[in-house]
């Protein structure tokens, strides 16, 4: 269906998740249009955008679903992350609650989304803390800092869950392209065209046990009596 692109183009369905007003749409806007708007409209439902970028030999076409952040839109989210090969879980480094929410999203993705989904954790609004000089060195959250979620906290979560981790600023474009490029690099070449059609392959390989797998400790001498 979406195979109009050349062979080397990999279509990657990517979904953005995170609490309201952490800057999901702004990150996408920065990545797709290299633009920034203060007071971006709240997203209702979800927005869809595409962007191509070249990584080495490959062209990756990101099909980005930018979801609405408010809690009650969560019932719509599964439709967007189903079949996604990549997810960007965003939080606001000045809002601890958004980090907790990010944790939840990661958990939900691990339980519900496609196995092997590439997840990047993104602490956004880095620009707000750039002026805090002290925290740069210590990595600790100082009393006066606007930063409420330390780099360590983010890194720890990322390590625990096997996520990529970035702190970004959609406003200054800091690390924004890097996030998407890193995701692109992690997408295996084999998964081409996967995200184009959410209706395809509704397989949810979530938490299933493969009963058909052979038991390794089979004994060949078993009971000859």
């Amino acid at each position, binding site marked *: 269906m*979406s195979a109009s692109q050349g062979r080397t183009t990999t279509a990657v369905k990517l979904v953005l998740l995170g609490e309201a007003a952490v800057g999901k749409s702004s990150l996408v806007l920065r990545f797709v249009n290299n633009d920034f708007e203060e007071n*971006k409209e709240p997203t*209702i*439902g*979800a927005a869809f955008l595409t962007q191509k970028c070249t990584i080495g030999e490959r062209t990756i076409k990101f099909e980005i679903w930018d979801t609405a952040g408010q809690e009650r*839109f969560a019932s719509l989210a599964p439709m967007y992350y189903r079949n996604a090969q990549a997810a960007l879980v965003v939080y606001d480094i000045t809002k601890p609650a958004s980090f907790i929410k990010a944790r939840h999203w990661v958990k939900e993705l691990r339980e519900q989304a496609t196995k092997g989904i590439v997840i990047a954790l993104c602490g956004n609004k880095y620009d707000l803390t750039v002026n805090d000089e002290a925290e740069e060195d210590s990595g600790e959250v100082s009393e006066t800092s606007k930063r409420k979620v330390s780099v360590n906290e983010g890194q720890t979560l990322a390590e625990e869950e096997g996520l990529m981790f970035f702190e970004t600023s959609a406003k200054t474009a800091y690390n924004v392209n890097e996030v998407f490029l890193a995701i692109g690099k992690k997408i295996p070449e084999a998964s081409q065209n996967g995200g184009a059609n*959410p209706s395809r392959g509704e397989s949810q390989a979530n*938490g*299933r046990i493969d009963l058909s797998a052979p038991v390794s400790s089979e004994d060949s*001498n078993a009971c000859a009596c």
Partner: protein
Amino acid sequence: MSDNETGDTSTDVFHDAKANVTGEEVTQDKTESETVDKDEAFKDVVSAEAEESHETGSLEPAIESVEVEEGDNDTATIKSSKADIPVEGTRTEETDGTITSKVETETEQPAEHREVIANQIQEEHENYPNEIIDDDAERVVSPVEEVQQLSTSSAPAPAPEAAPEAAPAEVLDDPQESIVSSFDSASMVKHSEEIPPLPLRDQPVYINMEDAVEPKAAVKSFKQWFNLKLKSVNNSREVLTPATTLDQEEFLRELGDIENFDLLVSRLNRNNRDLFSKSDKDRQVLNTGATTLRMTFNEIKTGIQYTNNESLIKSIDWEFWSLVCNDYTEVVNTRHDQLIENITDGIPKELRGMVWQLMTNSKSFSLEELYRTLKLEDSPFEKAIKRDLARTSFVTTSEVKNKIDDLYEVIKTYSVFDPEVGYTQGMAFITVPLLMNMGSSEAFCMLVTLMKNYGFRELFMPSMTGLHLLLYQFDRILEDIAPDLFSYLQRSGVRSSMYATQWFLTLFGYKFPLDMVLRIFDIVIAEGLQSVLKFAVNLMLKSKDHILQLKFDDLVSFLKEKLFYYYLIKTDIVQEESNPSLMTGFQRELKSITLESYRLDDFVRDAMKVELLPLNLKRYEAEYEEIHRLETEREEEMETLRTSNGQLTREIRKLESAYAVLNREHVDVANEMIQGKVLIANLQDENKSLEAEVADLNLRVASLEKELSEQKPDRKGSATSMSSGVELSSNLEMEVKKTMERNLEVMEENRGLEEQLSLLEGEYDSLKKELEELKITHKDLKHRWGSLRKVFGE
């Protein structure tokens, strides 16, 4: 596939039915421009599949229907005494008596009209039942669609304007011509032949709930007609309408209820039902509210008159709107189509707030009082609301900018008032239009009413069931009306929730300027929340051809961003094409898109041409609820399965470790066993060798025994066979004798020797004695020798 086909057919019918409605209206309405409009519209909707084979003879029944109306007018004038429709006495002085009386006479007509038509139908059926059946067998027509058509097609009758009344002769003069001139396709005229105009129209005479008298005659005749239809339906092979699958009684009951065929009436009745379900006190409060609102009508009118703005004064149909304000229910019942038309054209801006509130029965002093109290309370959503209001361009760029504090208060107070809903992004889009047209406390009342009575609450509830329901209904309607489009979207993997969510949550406010949203609000308030589906479906239909050419990603962005461009005035589209940026462009675009850049009237009018039957909507709702129920069940099941899966996983792990232990034990045992086996093998070998030895030995024993037994008979044999062994035995005997003799000799000799020995012993003894003696002598001698030596030595 067969599903699609039936869908197709019903679509055709749907279109045809609509065309027919339009046609009827045109016969009534003499305005030139209107005719042209409708004509165009008609061309739009009549599908290419319209059959032409029915052209001949199709006009005849149409004429009949005109005659009916004529006769109807006659009877009306004769039996003018019948006035079973109560007219509320709360009219303002503004309404002049002539209108009142006119309304009264007009209201009588539907009843008469009904009877006449009902009789007519019965006659018709008696006369041509076979024809109808044949016709039906050929053309698959769903009874539901027909009834819908009937209910609307006969609708204009109750509100005949002065013109038709004055000139019925004209109509009679050449009805054929007038019809032909109005429409040049036969298919829809054919329809009026197929379906006799049915007496459903009288049913909206639900002035108050108490007065809702069942129109028995109509139902009776309707049932006759329906049974006839049902028979024909059963006769035709290919038809599978809901009627055949539904319980017939149930279906009849549903068909007998006008509410199922008219959103406007359905909405009104729900509002009224709600009003009458309230306690007397509450109702009185609402009535007082309404009365207060009505009084402002004069103020508004005089206010406008003072401005001396002639065009403004003339642009408003004061007479009509005063009727609406005085008794909305009555206007719905008596001037149904005029009302819809006027609302479609937009409620005058000056009257909008008042009309809305009167339609919804929202104004309540006690609720306003509550608003003022709750306003002071804190809400957990305060921050979120503030943040969203500041970044919602619908708010920041509209006229309501000055009322942003009120907006915040209303939304915040609502979140306190209804903590279960709290605050949902998108609420601002609903509240802004209200605040544009009324005070903040009134807006709060209306917000509460919309939430409670209009189903907005379900839309904004955390579970968003209302949204999912609308999306489902949207899907089903689209599937009915444009199955090709629907299946194309399905195949492309584009779900309605991907693009239509924001339409429904914001009543299109997310993309449209406020003016458009206000017009959508007019319809929604008159017809209910589900009428947004009309707008949604219409937009899809208008861009259908374009959509069918798009691929997935273009498809989504088109549906989300550009679907509305159909109603943009051309120049804007060109401008937009040159600047294809989607999101960034939007805010600027919003500012540039003013009322003038959209063909607003067309947008609303086209949407209103989309027919939605409450009956179908209800059916879809039931379907959705069933699906939803199953889904929840499935989810619950999934959940229990997941937990039991977890438990089982743990159990498996436990069992696996136990298994590992057992396995190790097993290996040990097996090893032991192997050793044992080796041992056994060795023993067996040993055993074998021993056995062999034993056998060998046995053999040897046997052979020895044999040998032995052989030897014995030998000896016996030698003894018995003397002849052969005489010599041997005599020899032996001789030898024995010799040996014995010798033995004797030896014994003799031995005796002699023994004697000699004893002699010798004796000799030995004497010798011994001699030796002793000698020894003694020797000793003596020795002794002597010693003494001698002594002597000599010395």
